[in-house]
């Protein structure tokens, strides 16, 4: 597997802090959401626990004007793109102050004003839309870049294949950020991939003629560096890049899922935890002290609790909200 060696020295301290802060936000948000959902909320949620480095590293390489498409496991993408955790939590509580007026819930949380073109309840469905946004950037001559986040499960969807074909042949400014998290729902990825393909999925991207990189998706610095290169390539008219980021879904498929994964597998990946690892490197590089880390954690804890409070206290939507926004005009 290709990796970016010791790139932390290439980061300035400020960027390193931002990456750490974003990963913490995702971790704490998702941890608390897992606790709250069964007790206080309705519906379902799929958490991003364990995969924080990917959304964080990729989105840190983007501008506000750039586009992303997200997935059913989308909270991390929204936070990384700068989403407001209060409005996210309000949506999870089904409150009118939520991003979707409380109508759509976890599967659809997205901030359109931040260029997030939807989370998605349909696996893979956002990927052609990201390609379309890239097409639009070219047509409108804006230099915006699009990122499609999706998993190794979605990589087998027909529409993802179609999207990659079009991105490649039209040389569009789009990045495919593939979260290779080893499980598609309750199915082990190795059961649906040939092992020699799964071990290094960049062959999939190369098959489309797309510049493809396989990397450690739990290494936020590696992801950030790779994403930055991909963004530069895209903006310079060099076409698409596929980043195959190897990680692990630390939670079940959804909050409350049954337990079907071997304990030793979880233990092994726990050792590769993206946040713990980054902390060690931050300390070693003297980018942070132990007390800095405490301070960051306390602050993010506070923000997440504030978001929960906002969600709890926000008003429920009136019944008329269910009837709104079906058509712009009819």
């Amino acid at each position, binding site marked *: 597997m290709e990796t970016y060696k010791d790139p932390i020295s290439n980061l300035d301290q400020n960027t390193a802090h931002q990456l750490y802060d974003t990963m913490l936000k995702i971790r704490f948000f998702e941890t608390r959401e897992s606790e709250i959902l069964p007790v206080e909320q309705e519906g379902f949620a799929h958490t991003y626990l364990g995969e924080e480095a990917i959304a964080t590293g990729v989105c840190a390489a983007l501008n506000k004007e750039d586009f992303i498409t997200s997935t059913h496991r989308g909270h991390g993408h929204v936070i990384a793109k700068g989403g407001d955790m209060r409005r996210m939590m309000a949506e999870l509580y089904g409150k009118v102050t939520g*991003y*979707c007026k409380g109508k759509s819930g976890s599967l659809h949380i997205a901030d359109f004003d931040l260029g997030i073109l939807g989370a998605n309840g*349909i696996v893979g469905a956002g990927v052609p839309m990201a390609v379309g*946004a890239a097409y*639009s950037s070219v047509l409108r001559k804006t230099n915006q870049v699009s990122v499609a986040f999706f998993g190794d499960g979605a990589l087998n969807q*027909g529409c993802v294949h179609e999207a990659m074909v*079009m991105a490649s042949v039209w040389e569009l400014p789009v990045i495919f950020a593939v979260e290779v998290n080893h499980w598609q729902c309750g199915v082990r990825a190795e059961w649906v991939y040939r092992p020699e393909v799964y071990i290094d999925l960049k062959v999939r991207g190369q098959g489309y003629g797309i510049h493809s990189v396989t990397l450690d998706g739990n290494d936020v610095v590696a992801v950030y560096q790779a994403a930055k290169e991909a963004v530069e390539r895209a903006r310079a008219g060099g076409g698409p890049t596929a980043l195959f980021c190897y990680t692990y879904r630390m939670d079940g498929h959804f909050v409350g899922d049954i337990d079907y994964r071997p304990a030793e597998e979880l233990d092994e990946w726990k050792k590769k935890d993206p946040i713990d690892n980054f902390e060690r490197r931050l300390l070693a590089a003297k980018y942070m002290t132990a007390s800095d880390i405490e301070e960051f954690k306390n602050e993010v804890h506070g923000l997440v609790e504030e978001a929960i409070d906002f969600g709890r206290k926000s008003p429920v939507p009136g019944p008329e909200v269910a009837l709104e926004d079906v*058509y712009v005009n009819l």
Partner: protein
Amino acid sequence: MFQEINNMRKIEYRVAVREAMTEEMRKDPTLYLMAYDIGPYGGEFRTSTGMYEEFGPRRVQDAPICEQGEVGVAIGAAITGCKAIVEIPFMDFIPMCMDQICNQAAKFLYTFGGKQGVPIVIRTAMGGYIRAGEQHSQCFENWFVHVPGLKVVVPSTPYDVKGLLKTAINDPDPVVFVEHKYMYPMKGEVPEEEYTLPFGVADIKKSGSDITVIATSYMVHLCLSVAAKLEKEGISVEVIDPRTLVPLDEEKILESVKKTGKVVIVHEAVERGGWGGEMSAIIADKAFAYLDAPVKRLGARNTPIPFPKVLEETILPTQARIEEMIRSIL
């Protein structure tokens, strides 16, 4: 409106389609057209001849054969500042892209709490009578009538197709625009001047007093022929064309039914589950007291569409079957 315009000329239905797209593309540089065969070939049914030469390859974009991805790309472009027309040459291929149309385009506005609609037009050609068999003859307009968030247009003449397509292109919501393969070479009067036709306004194609026949697309022409024949016997048939199924001009339809007291609904889609059932429910609900006979509906028989003439005519509506149905309640 039709009569007030002086500079009439007779053009083919396919030319009317092309004129609508061309006129709008000249006005809006963000509007683009995508499909396979759309470019130098000039469109599967010659609806875009010359457009590639005028607008170039980015705005008249030949696509790989991947209907789902094409619609996804169009959505992505449409929510980021462009407008897109996707052509699915045969409506039989539209099942390939149902997710993007029904789960993505139709839901986007709702999910985003009214923030962003999806201004795409999915142009497609339905219908039989061309000896094309099971997978090149079907009418699926009903499916989209059933999905909140979509508009459904089913024009029957060159005049209607041009005016309604221009409206569709400028509509902020996703529109499924259903043309008819058999009608592409049909000529009709179309003004030289630019014009548009509103959605949700039915058109009385022939007024009459004894019975109301509701029909769309090519069925309008079959019904008009039958009406002309019956006229000679002193039977006065009113032929009304809703033109758009969503939104539906209930008022004008009910007015006609109340006037005649008898109604036959004709569509080419198979009868079971067709919009004729929906229409008859509306009539039964809102004009029951005015009815002098049961509401009748006629669609294709509930089988696939065979290819040879003798079998195709057994299945699809014909003038003889329409006439028989009308006479059965006179």
